[in-house]
């Protein structure tokens, strides 16, 4: 199959970017989206041009490294998958694809499709942990956790931090990402002890990074490759309001 790719090219964080159009022939329907970019880059390298920079790592939808805006949708037109899980069979022969980096004030572009998501790391570092001495794994049955609670915490922990929620939010809000970590820890007895202090620190850091306000449009959940629920945001609000009333 044949595709026309309009790709955002930007030499550095400070450079002015622009779209460049490339045409690829002889593509296979079974190729993944990132394999298609590999093919393009191979051609560019052969021609002596600079290849397109894009983030990727595991290529099996669990690391959260890849992610770009494809025809105006985060991770492309299919719901519940990351960019690496997207295949060319989702497109038609002759289609034009516009490929842009995830954009938000807190996610500056480093080069081409690669963005700086270290704001997420700083949010986690501000409180997304349990202050307990580490050692060997504790005995699993020493703290009993009901099955549905464990499952619910695991659903929150499913967030891979890809940033699609921020990219797709009309407000550039990181509420889904931040709340997923807050809820994950607040649901479990080990995390409960620091729940109030944690939510205050993480929300303050989220604001410091320049993310927008959550207005509950729920677009984040619809575009999240892991289907992380917006109810995590409700739990974050609950924990935060509790900390306001009772002190951190």
């Amino acid at each position, binding site marked *: 199959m044949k595709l026309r790719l309009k790709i955002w090219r930007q030499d550095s964080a400070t450079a002015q970017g622009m779209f460049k159009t490339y045409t690829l022939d002889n593509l296979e329907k079974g190729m993944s989206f990132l394999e298609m970019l590999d093919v393009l880059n191979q051609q560019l390298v052969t021609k002596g041009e600079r290849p397109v920079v894009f983030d990727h790592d595991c290529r099996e939808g669990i690391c959260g490294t890849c992610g770009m805006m494809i025809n105006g949708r985060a991770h492309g037109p299919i719901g519940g998958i990351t960019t690496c899980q997207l295949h060319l069979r989702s497109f038609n022969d002759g289609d034009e694809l516009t490929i842009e980096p995830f954009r938000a004030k807190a996610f500056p572009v480093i080069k081409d499709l690669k963005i700086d998501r270290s704001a997420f790391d700083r949010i986690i570092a501000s409180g997304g942990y349990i202050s307990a001495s580490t050692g060997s794994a504790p005995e699993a049955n020493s703290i009993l956790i009901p099955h549905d609670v464990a499952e619910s915490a695991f659903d929150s922990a499913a967030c891979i931090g890809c940033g699609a929620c921020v990219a797709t939010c009309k407000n550039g*809000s990181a509420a889904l990402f931040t709340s997923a970590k807050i809820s994950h820890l607040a649901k479990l007895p080990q995390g409960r002890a620091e729940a109030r202090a944690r939510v205050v620190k993480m*929300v303050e850091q989220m604001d410091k990074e320049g993310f927008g*306000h959550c207005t509950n449009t729920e*677009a984040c959940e619809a575009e999240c490759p892991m289907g992380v629920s917006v109810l995590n945001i409700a739990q974050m609000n609950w924990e935060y309001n509790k900390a306001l009333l009772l002190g951190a």
Partner: protein
Amino acid sequence: MLKLTLLRKLLMALTGLFLCLFLVIHLLGNLQLFLPKEIAQEQFNAYSQALSGNLFIKVVAIGLYLSILAHAIYAVVITIHNRKSSGKYAIDERKVASPWYSRSMGLLGTVIFVFIVIHFQNFWYYYKFTDMPLDAWGRKDLYSAVVNLFGNVWYVMLYVVSMVAMGYHLLHGVASAVRTLGVYHQKYVRVVNVAGVAYSVIISVGFAIIPIYVYVVQHQERLLSLLQLK
């Protein structure tokens, strides 16, 4: 000025829900306009006089004015902040992921705010600050003022359009405010959402149907003859 995003949202939620409570009381009062003219005029004017003279109502009314202003001012603050935080795309299909009214709260809110200004001028200012005509019982005749305005087809249309905007604003606003308060339970999420939709429909349709009713009653003969001509 509140700095944290969650505090600003909390203020929006609390003022919004307070205004939602007020809408219920306001609608219940308006239902008197469905009564036959003789009863409605005396009862509605007596009700208006009782409300404007009551100290408790005066205190709540100040809270109401402040809520409207705070809700509107913070809406602007939040919108400006969000515009700066969010990204712009050459091709933007993000709209498929959320309902249009959840993304248009600012626009819908602006329609409502303009309506409130007109509404205050027509009734609140007119009642409180002008020497308006009195009724047969010596009370300010707000009923006739309402009925006169509701006899104007353009005013009725403005009113109905504003109520449609309010309906959509509430459709997102009520559920969103409850989320912001963080009051939720896996089991009752659906119940809250359905109750929010029911509230929005009842309130907006309830308000909108009153001017239509008053207009139709006033112009029934002309409307009937129009129908017969066809």
